[in-house]
């Protein structure tokens, strides 16, 4: 895959390219070059820090969509052992945009459910670029029910632009499939830990996107609507997505502030794709300690707390009228 450059990184990438060019020259024969290279290196370093240190919401959305960003597959491969995939909704199809499996995290057996983007174009076509069809949500629900039956905690990974808005998806009850996931997840009598690793697009993310803990990666987003579609509705102009991204309060920090997320996993400067390994390890540690804490609760308390978490979300006024 060709190197993927996000819009806002372009100035930095241009400097980096120039630096690489200079370095390729014969420094020994051009003594003045060494100083120039040194200057440029400082400049690149400075720019990198200012550029990445405080990403705007829209820039984070772009980072969350970076093709090299670690995906559900990567977390599963790195963190879990003895993975046995569950396939199919037992009624219509096996949607590869949703991954479901029995898997082991350290010494703990769990059910994993995750949106599944591909790495290659071929994979992405099979997986519909991570946008589930109704049968994907129905497969997820089957995995939830299996977790319930055999008392296995559930770990979910969110990474979808949203449920697929296709013709046949509507006909096969996309809304019904999502709603049934919400209802099932809301009182599933096992611990549910959710990790926002990339995109958290609307109802398609929410269907497997709430539980007893919500861990967000620093550059993951979670939003009621995509910034582009929001801009389209508000301004009839998708180019104003950046404004929408800021308005929608969709970053990990926003979710912390709103009391929806529980913790944020920091990413290396520039995004998790620049050095995935420590991020994946950190996510594994966060999941493990969340499961540890939640497993100590009895089921009744667990479900009361989960309902209480949802119940508390919302800001409204209650007048005296």
């Amino acid at each position: 895959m060709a190197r993927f450059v996000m819009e806002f990184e372009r100035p930095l990438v241009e400097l980096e390219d120039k630096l690489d060019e200079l370095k390729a020259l014969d420094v020994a024969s051009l003594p003045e070059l060494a100083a120039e290279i040194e200057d440029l290196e400082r400049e690149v370093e400075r720019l990198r820090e200012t550029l990445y240190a405080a990403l705007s919401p829209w820039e984070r959305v772009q980072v969350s969509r970076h093709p090299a960003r670690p995906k559900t597959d990567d977390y599963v491969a790195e963190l879990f052992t003895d993975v046995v995939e569950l396939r199919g909704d037992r009624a219509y199809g096996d949607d590869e945009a949703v991954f479901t499996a029995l898997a082991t995290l350290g010494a703990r057996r769990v059910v994993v459910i995750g949106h599944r983007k591909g790495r290659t174009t071929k994979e992405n076509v099979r997986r519909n670029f991570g946008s589930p069809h109704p049968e994907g949500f129905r497969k997820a629900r089957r995995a939830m029910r299996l977790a319930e039956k055999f008392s296995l905690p559930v770990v979910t990974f969110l990474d979808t632009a949203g449920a697929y808005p296709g013709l046949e998806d509507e006909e096969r009850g996309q809304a019904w499939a999502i709603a049934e996931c919400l209802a099932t997840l809301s009182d599933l009598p096992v611990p549910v830990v959710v990790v926002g690793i990339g995109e958290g697009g609307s109802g398609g993310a929410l269907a497997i996107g709430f539980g007893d803990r919500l861990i967000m990666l620093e550059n993951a987003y979670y939003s009621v609507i995509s910034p582009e579609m929001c801009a389209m509705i508000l301004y009839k102009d998708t180019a104003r997505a950046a404004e929408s991204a800021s308005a929608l309060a969709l970053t990990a920090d926003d979710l912390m502030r709103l009391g929806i997320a529980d913790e944020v996993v920091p990413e290396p400067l520039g995004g998790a794709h620049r050095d995935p390994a420590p991020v994946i390890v950190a996510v594994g540690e966060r999941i493990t300690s969340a499961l540890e804490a939640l497993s100590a609760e009895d089921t009744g308390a667990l479900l009361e707390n989960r309902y209480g978490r949802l119940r508390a979300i919302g800001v409204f006024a209650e007048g005296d009228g």
Partner: protein
Amino acid sequence: MPINDWFKQRESRRYTVTSGSGADLPDGVWRTCPECRKTLYQGDVARSLSVCPHCAHHFELIAADRIEALVDPGSFEETNASVGSVDPLRFSAVKPYTESLAAARESCGLAEAAITGRARIGDRAVAIGALDFRFVGASMGSAVGEKVTRLFELAIAERRAVVLVVASGGARMQEGMLSLMQMAKTAAAAERLARAGLPYVSVLVNPTYGGVTASFAVLADMIFAEPGALVGFAGPRLVEQTIRRSLPKGFQSAESLVDHGMIDGVVPRAEMRGRVAAVLGYLVPGGDV
């Protein structure tokens, strides 16, 4: 206007549950039916539950009229009337969210897009709610989510059936993630009602979309829709852009939802009260008929 100001101002002009429809239209006005293009006398429209006498086109109804059309006369008693949206994200694009709210309150005489309360249908105690499409497209923000959740909780506490008349543009994006999470919150409340063994009937009217369809609206034991109502997750324009061809006739219509197995029937407005009462007759706990 801020909600507290609105509540003060509201004192003097409390909205009332009016019968008939055409919202604020006086009786003497003439309207054109969008379906058959006939010119109709508003008084006739109102007397027929806002259904066109010529082609049976179902005009939009305000939430209060929706409830009025279903419950035993005079039995509705509103709850949580004062719960209304605020602007937690200070959302401002084109027009500030606070302005949209103020305008909606002004024109509808409602604090929020949902009206909820206790009532009786066929003399059975129910918890009933309706959404008003005029109010920011009956989108679900924190206040709608809260009111719907409280309605389910009231029903559980008082062992009532729940009846909801749903129309909605979906989630209320001006409240961002607070809005999205109302889907999970209301679905969780609906699930608790189900676990309590209490019945829930939803009535989907035109239009019902997005995060409202994909949460409490379709979690009912039985789902009915009005003729011609459009119901879906993604809006038709988005679907059309996605598939890059035109949509089949009747796409997302109530009638096609029956064929696709999603709802229990298309019920004309005039028969809805009877249908809902009949279902409650079966599902409300109690002795044999």
